[in-house]
Structure formats: structure tokens, C-alpha cells
């Protein structure tokens, strides 16, 4: 038996998710490894990419059931971990950043208090020290005028700033793995790049693994080392660059995006009959 790989952060073997009594699983037999790297997951809506992220965090709604031959995070079998232990892991060793900061931040607490709360929950620190950590972390995510911002409520700050606050909160405990589910979709184009760069910088600093879930295949390709393409719950391809794309679904996704540098008169649309011929689904 080979020695356990110390760099391995997450191992998933044949991970499936079913909702209720539906015949077709939402996620079917997904296997992958995550090291200290950036892994992108792309697909259309309904392809199961967000469900996969939530299954790893064990945040599925009660109607959803995850099963796997193996789902190990940092030496812990996630599927047999108790809910109490999971609560200790989430936000501490593993973090989830969601799409819209307007919904994921608590609207009735000031920013400073929310970030400090993350420190109080996960680190053995005093209240004063927690606020100090929060201040330092907000500085790291380049928020100007920290003292003023810490007193503001989420509705008083912009979307880009909100997402940076989320990142500060999530990375404060230096997690081993960060799952970012469409972290920039709700943001303006001009701040997207900044948020991604910041996320990358902090994740690298902690030597952590990042899973970036998005529908924007070019953005993922520019940012991630490996790209996992999902279609109807299954992984159809794992790529290291877009040029390698073989599957008609991946090629269709790339061609469907208008490209600034390669203008076409008509955009290509997905040839679903050809894809379904290759990927038969009940």
C-alpha cells in the first residue's frame, strides 16, 4: 500500500447526490483529488456543479443524500463525520464563499462584528484580539478606511466590498480548502479581476486548495490549473487548458461565448443531440 499522500487535501471517489426519490442523481460518480491548487468546475445551470460543492461541505438540504466510495478531507471521512464535528470544520478548515454578498452577510450586524465573530468562533482568542485580527484581515483584503467600514452594515457597502469582506471572514481561520461558488457573478466586470486575484493570493499564502465553481469557462481557464467540466451531473472532461477540449459539450460552451478578439456573425449554439448521443442519460 502506498504511503498516504500528505499534500492531498480532498479525495472524492464516486461521489453521488440524489434528491428525494428522483431516478436520476443530481451528481453521479464524480471522482477527483484536490491538492494545494486551483481547480475549476464549469457547466450550465443544473449541471450539478453547485450541488457538488455543497455535498463536499455537507450543506445539502435535508432531502438530498450524498453517497461515495470515499470522501476524505484532510484525513477525515466527511460522510461519516457527525454534524457536531462538521460545524467545527466549516468556516475553520473548509470555507464556502457564495455568489452574492448581499445575501450571505448578516444584514443586522456591522461588518467588523461579523468578521470578528468568525475569529471568536474558530480561534482561541479573546474578544479584543478577535477585533484586532478582523482589522488585520480587512486590511489584507484592501479595504480602505477600516475603522469606518467596520461600523457599517452590509447594505451600506458595495458588492465588490461585500465580497472582499466575505473573503476576509472565510480566510481568517486559514482554511485548508476554500470552495468559491460563483464568487464574482454578482459583481461588476471592473472589480471581478481584483476579487479573483485577492482570493488567489490569500489561498496561496495559506497553501490551501481552491475549488472555483463558475459558468464562465474562459474566466475559469484563465485562473485555474485544472478545469473539470460537468454535464447533467457527470464529469465529462478534466482539462489543464481549453485547447485540449475534446468533448463537444466543452467545445460548445467555449464557442457559445462571444469573444472580444475573435468576432463571429452568429454564435454557435450547443448541439444537444450530438452531446446526448455521447452522454446518454435516462
Amino acid at each position, binding site marked *: 500500500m502506498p504511503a498516504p499522500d500528505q499534500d492531498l487535501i480532498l479525495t472524492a471517489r464516486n461521489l453521488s447526490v440524489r434528491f428525494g426519490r428522483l431516478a436520476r442523481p443530481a451528481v453521479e460518480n464524480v471522482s477527483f483529488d484536490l491538492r494545494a491548487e486551483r481547480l475549476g468546475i464549469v457547466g*450550465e*445551470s443544473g449541471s450539478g456543479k453547485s450541488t457538488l460543492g455543497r455535498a463536499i461541505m455537507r450543506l445539502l438540504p435535508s432531502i438530498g443524500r450524498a453517497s461515495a466510495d470515499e470522501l476524505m478531507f484532510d484525513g477525515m471521512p466527511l460522510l461519516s463525520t457527525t454534524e457536531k464535528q462538521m460545524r467545527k470544520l466549516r468556516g475553520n478548515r473548509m470555507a464556502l464563499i457564495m455568489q452574492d454578498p448581499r445575501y450571505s452577510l448578516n444584514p443586522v450586524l456591522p461588518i467588523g462584528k461579523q468578521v470578528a465573530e468568525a475569529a471568536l468562533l474558530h480561534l482561541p482568542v479573546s474578544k479584543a484580539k478577535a477585533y484586532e485580527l478582523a482589522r488585520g484581515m480587512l486590511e489584507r483584503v484592501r479595504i480602505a478606511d477600516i475603522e469606518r467600514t467596520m461600523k457599517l452594515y452590509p447594505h451600506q457597502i458595495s*458588492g465588490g466590498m461585500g465580497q472582499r469582506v466575505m473573503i476576509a471572514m472565510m480566510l481568517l481561520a486559514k482554511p485548508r480548502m476554500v470552495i468559491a461558488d460563483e464568487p464574482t457573478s454578482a459583481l*461588476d*466586470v*471592473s*472589480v*471581478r*479581476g481584483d476579487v*479573483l486575484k485577492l482570493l488567489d493570493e490569500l489561498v496561496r499564502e495559506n497553501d490551501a486548495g481552491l475549488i472555483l465553481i463558475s*459558468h*464562465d*469557462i*474562459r*474566466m475559469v481557464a*484563465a485562473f485555474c490549473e485544472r478545469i473539470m467540466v460537468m454535464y447533467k451531473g457527470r464529469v465529462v472532461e478534466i482539462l489543464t487548458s481549453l485547447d485540449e477540449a475534446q468533448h463537444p459539450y466543452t467545445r*460548445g*460552451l467555449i464557442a*457559445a*461565448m*462571444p*469573444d*472580444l*478578439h475573435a*468576432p*463571429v*456573425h*452568429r*454564435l*454557435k*449554439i*450547443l448541439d444537444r443531440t450530438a452531446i446526448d448521443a455521447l452522454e446518454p442519460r435516462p
Partner: protein
Amino acid sequence: MIPTPPMIDVQELSVSFGNGASARQVVKNVSFSVAKGETLGIVGESGCGKSTVLRSLAGLDRHWNGRINLAGTDVDKVRTRDQMLLTQMVFQDPYGSLHPRHRISRVLTEPIRAMGLGKGWDKVDAALQQVGLPVSFADRFPHQLSGGQRQRVAIARALMLQPQIILLDEPTSALDVSVQAEVLNLLADLKDERQLTYVLVSHDLGVIAHMCDRVLVMKGGVFVDALSREDLYEGRTHNDYSRMLFEASAL
């Protein structure tokens, strides 16, 4: 080129919200014109006033100042029936812009009834077919349709009164990439077919560059840059802000 009068001619348009000391000017004296059959794009960040310009053109906002000329006639702040027939708007979110308890046939005939032009039930089939939807969808409710199908219904509704100008406010940003391509192709086909004039507002430069003949970059209520199609393909910009926007999109 035959010198035809522009389809849309806007002079010194400004829009303010609020009164007295708290008044905030959102659109500051902008002027532009769009020729018949042209597609004009407006890009900018949230809050730059691009949607407000569109709402003033559509007649949804009435507190603008300046001059708006559509198809050769100056329009009033409160539109007459004939002026209302000139423009139609397609909104960003097809989940919010269709009445959840009205069947598609009723959604589509609403503009005809609102204008007092009869009942319009006989026009439903043709309207669905022209946007590539099966006729049987007429009896469905919006929740029985996917996002892309709903946006097609919204486009069909905008075409019901055969306007010459279609105003598109982020028509694809709520849709998937693959569905976005279908809707953009549909819009391009309809434009070729009916000689429509489009004004497209978006923050996605990729979409704008694909659809538009000319692009205006908006920031803080004014246009800071105007780009032609060639400028976009070659990445030429004339302003620091538009360069920044361009580089951020080309990520």
C-alpha cells in the same frame, strides 16, 4: 450611404432623482443619436446611469430634461399613444418581467389590449413561432418555462406592437452562456428581418462587442468614450476608464 434622419436623436438629456438639496443628477447632459437599423451599445458599471437613459427613452421615467426625438418626432414626457408605439423594452430578468399567474397567450396579448387595438388572440401563434417557440406554449404559465424560453416570450411580447426601436436592458445577463448564445442569435435574426433599431445596455463587453455597431462607455452619468466596431476588435480605447474596463473583460 443615403442620409436618412436618425431613428433616435437625444440632445442634452439629463435626469435627476430627489428634490432640493438631496437631488442627485444621475445622467448629465448626454447627447447621442442612433441610425435606423443600427445597434448602439452602452456599457458601464452599476450605477453609472445606463439603465436610466434607457428608461427615459422608453418613456418609463418622466422627470428627464432635454430633447428626445424618436423616428423624426419629438416625444413628450407623458407619451401619447402613437409615441408609445415607437419603442418597446426587454428587461433583464425574465423571471420578474412576466406575470406569474397569466398564461403566455395573455402575456403576449397584453400590449394589444393595453393599446386598445382589439383582443389580439389570433396573433399569439405567429408571435411564438417568430421567436422559435412551439405554439403549444400559449397555454402555459411562466413557471413552466426555462429562463431562455421566458426571455424569448419577453422578446415576442416586445415585438407584438411592431415597434421600430427595441430597448434591451441586459437581456442575457440572467441566462446561461449556452442559452445566451441562442437569445443573441435570435435578436440578430429579428433585427435583420425587420430592420429594427436596438439600444443594448450591458456590462458584458463580450456581448456588446458581438451585437453592436457602436459602443458608448458611460461613467458617472456622462459618456467618456465612443468606440467603433473596429476599435473593439483591435482593443483601441481613447480613455483610461474604458481601457480599464476593456482589460478587466479580457481576463
